[in-house]
């Protein structure tokens, strides 16, 4: 790919010279790591479910391949195309979510999935990036002082999405969407007072969920007071980290993982802890932190408010999802159904993340040789 000449003005060439290559590299490393970790974590689960040992590995390889293609494909889109796709995709996903509520099967007490052939589609996963970008579009419209009640419109949209998520009910996704949305609002200039108020009402919302939704209540109860209920997953996760120690038991040598529910999905981080040890976990965390910090830092000198808000929202969504998943694995957060991006097994969430990451790359494309505020001619002259 390095072979692209700078004189080559083709789509591919322009993509290569403008895309954030650091970000791209980190994402590719992450996808490869995910493939490798699924190889160690999923056979035990597959055998427990009576499937071929490599069942999940084969499917995950397919998903990851698809994800990489998606990342590359989406990253080629222009900013305006991203905006159009999201703004148009948003109502489609909202409709699908309503459809989910109406016709989706209830699994483990929640209706989140739509059955399409052999795949189960979780519309809320795809809704997330579209919602983030749409919110960014709405919020960016008031940059420049135009008299548009963008924050109110964004709030109405948020209320709609959050309401649908609560109805499913999907507590984790609601928290994630809410946190990303309020951060976007804050970046867009919402007074700190309002941000603080939103934080308080967020806590109030959690309290309300605790009071009204039994499964949320039981999860929080279990987290706060382990004796009050079944803490099997959390216990096993802790046991896995302790079994692994600093250096791990070795690939495939995990013992606790055999009894860890959702070892290949929500609890894959604990499996990494057992088999590769705390040091490998830290390296993985650094990889995630690198993607988040690199992405956000890259936006600090962004001049376009829409691109800044959209990319920041997508990166925050990615980073928060990571932190929540890892926090649950490390038993510092109550159990939630949230996957570890590109590492956990799962088609729907991974494809949605691939779209998100692809859009991050698409929105952060820039000519690294042109500094903001510098006259290009002057820059040229200086050469």
């Amino acid at each position: 790919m390095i072979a692209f000449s700078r004189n080559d003005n083709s789509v591919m060439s322009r993509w290569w010279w403008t895309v954030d290559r650091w970000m791209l590299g980190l994402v590719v490393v992450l996808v490869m790591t995910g493939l490798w970790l699924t190889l160690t974590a999923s056979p035990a689960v597959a055998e427990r479910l009576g499937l071929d040992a490599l069942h999940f590995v084969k499917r995950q390889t397919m998903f990851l391949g698809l994800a990489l293609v998606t990342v590359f494909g989406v990253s080629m889109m222009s900013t305006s195309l991203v905006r159009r796709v999201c703004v148009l995709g948003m109502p489609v996903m909202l409709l699908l979510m309503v459809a989910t509520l109406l016709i989706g099967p209830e699994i483990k007490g929640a209706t989140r999935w739509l059955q399409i052939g052999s795949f189960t589609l979780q519309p809320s996963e795809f809704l997330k990036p579209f919602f983030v970008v749409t919110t960014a579009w709405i919020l960016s419209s008031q940059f420049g002082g135009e008299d548009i009640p963008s924050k109110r419109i964004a709030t109405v949209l948020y209320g709609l999405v959050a309401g649908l998520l609560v109805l499913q009910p999907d507590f984790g996704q609601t928290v994630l969407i809410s946190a990303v949305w309020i951060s976007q609002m804050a970046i867009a200039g919402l007074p700190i007072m309002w941000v603080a108020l939103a934080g308080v009402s967020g806590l109030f919302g959690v309290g309300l969920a605790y009071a009204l939704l039994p499964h949320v209540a039981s999860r929080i109860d279990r987290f706060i007071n382990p004796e009050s209920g079944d803490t099997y997953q959390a216990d096993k996760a802790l046991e896995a980290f302790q079994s692994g120690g600093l250096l791990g038991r070795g690939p495939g040598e995990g013992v606790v993982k055999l009894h860890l529910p959702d070892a290949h999905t929500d609890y894959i981080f604990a499996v990494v802890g057992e088999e590769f040890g705390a040091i490998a976990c830290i390296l993985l965390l650094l990889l995630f932190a690198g993607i988040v910090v690199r992405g956000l830092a890259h936006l600090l000198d962004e001049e376009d408010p829409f691109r800044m808000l959209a990319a920041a929202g997508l990166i925050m969504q990615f980073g928060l999802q990571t932190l929540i998943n890892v926090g649950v694995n490390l038993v510092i957060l109550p159990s939630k159904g949230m996957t570890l991006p590109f590492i956990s097994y799962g088609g729907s969430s991974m494809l949605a993340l691939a779209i998100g990451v692809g859009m991050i790359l698409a929105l952060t494309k820039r000519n690294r040789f042109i500094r903001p505020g510098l006259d290009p001619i002057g820059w040229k002259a200086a050469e």
Partner: protein
Amino acid sequence: MNAAAFAMDPTRSGYVPSKRRGDEQPVRSQLDMARGRLFAVMILFLLGFMVMIGRTVELGMRENARPRSFAGQIEVPPVKVGRADIRDRNGEIMATNLRTSSLFADATQIRDASAASHDLVKILPQLSLADVESKLASGKKFVWLHRKLTPRQKWQVNALGNPAFRFEEEEERVYPHGRLASHIMGYVDVDGRGLGGVEHFFEDRLSDPDRHKDALKLSIDMRVQYALADELETARRVHSAIGAAGLVFDVTTGEVVALVSLPDYDPNDIRGVSADQLFNRVTQGVYELGSTFKTFTFASALDQGIVSLDDGYDATKPLVVGRFRIRDDHPKSRYLTVPEIFAFSSNIGTAQMALDVGTDGQRDFLEKLGMLRPSTVELTEVGAPMYPAPQQWKKISTMTISYGHGIAVSPLQLAVGTAAIVNGGRLIPATLVADSDGYQNATRVISEKTSHTMNMLLRMVVKKGTAGRADAVGYRVGGKTGTAEKPANGRYNRKALISSFMGVFPMDDPRYVVFALLDEPKGTKETYGFASGGWTAAPVVRNVVLRTAPLLGVAPEGEDEGLYQQVAMKINDKKGH
């Protein structure tokens, strides 16, 4: 460099504010604030990741707090400290331990419980397939599969190559003599806890970690034990008896030298053993032992001077007391001297003698002899004697008890009492432990003179009376036969007998009591159909004496006939007198 091309690219508007925004100033300030907040978000994320890293390190380091096993190694329960050996008086090993391997599984490492259990059941067919499979599927880190495998089974399990199957070294209790001393040894459970015999009685001492190298030395002599068991087993078979019991007892130390109860069991494998096999007929069983009890009646009467060897009683016809008739098994139908009453085992004479001793005198004497309390021997399987309560111990009880009916004691109690009669008059409690100093606590029950007289009478029983078949040439055996009818449904069954012989040798200086008992023996052609003690049990004692006297240090000698002259002349054993 074609930078201009990039600058003109409408999608590359990074440094060019949107054209539709006229006023640049608010955009600039809003963007500056956005940058500040974005920076804050970045810091928050960095903090979040640092918290996660910190927690990961904490959990990863926590392993050091407790020792962690590495792959291929697992925590094994501590190997049990060995149980002390049990040896006989000569140092022969009666119970020891072998190292064996017990199989357990780390079920967390089982991948295919069904296949693994099929493999295992092929090697250990005694295991149930369903049971093994459920254990292997349990997901537990430690499940016992089978205890104490043979080396071949262990090799076969290892050959399966399944890392989930592991072994724990254990010690297995082994009784090299098998069933030979079963009722003395008792047995242990799979975890090595004593459940019977001395294994149970000395549980604390045998399992004491500080004394596990210090063998428990019993008073038993396995050579004598073997001879006694062999003779009893033969007699039991010949006479088709349902059970047999025997005892060799050192009258000077109170040591039990041999103790046999049949049927017995193999303490190495107690699976499927019946309660009858476990029952110790010597210490646990209490029987109406019949005429062997006359020894005590005579000893008390002679010791208290109530009768002398010169006296006698009328035994011409059965004695009628109320609705009871007391008759003799070997009726002479004449006046009998005291030695004759003993030698011919006359119930009629003995009952009259007991009446002269009196009820209180009889009870006090039996109490003194230890007949009314359980033996203190070092076994848990000790039966309590049965006898009438004081208010029911009436005249008729006194008469029947005088010849061993209406009172039930264990053979061991009888042997201890007989030993006290023949050893000079000291009652020494029975013990199963070698070098016990229990004989120092002996209590006097009769005078030495009476003891001497009793010895002469006992010898006469063999020389001229009912126990001629007990005479082991050269070993001066004395004793008393006993033939009791077993009570059944409230009355005595004439066909079901407890036939016994309480032997003592050598009679001129008594060293050992040898007791033999057959439970429901049948007469044979050789015994002319008789199943009494003199015909069935006395020969056992003779054979045991012949086989064991050389081992016990008793030399055969010619007998000083003058010693028994005084008694012998008072016994007229001519037929048809």
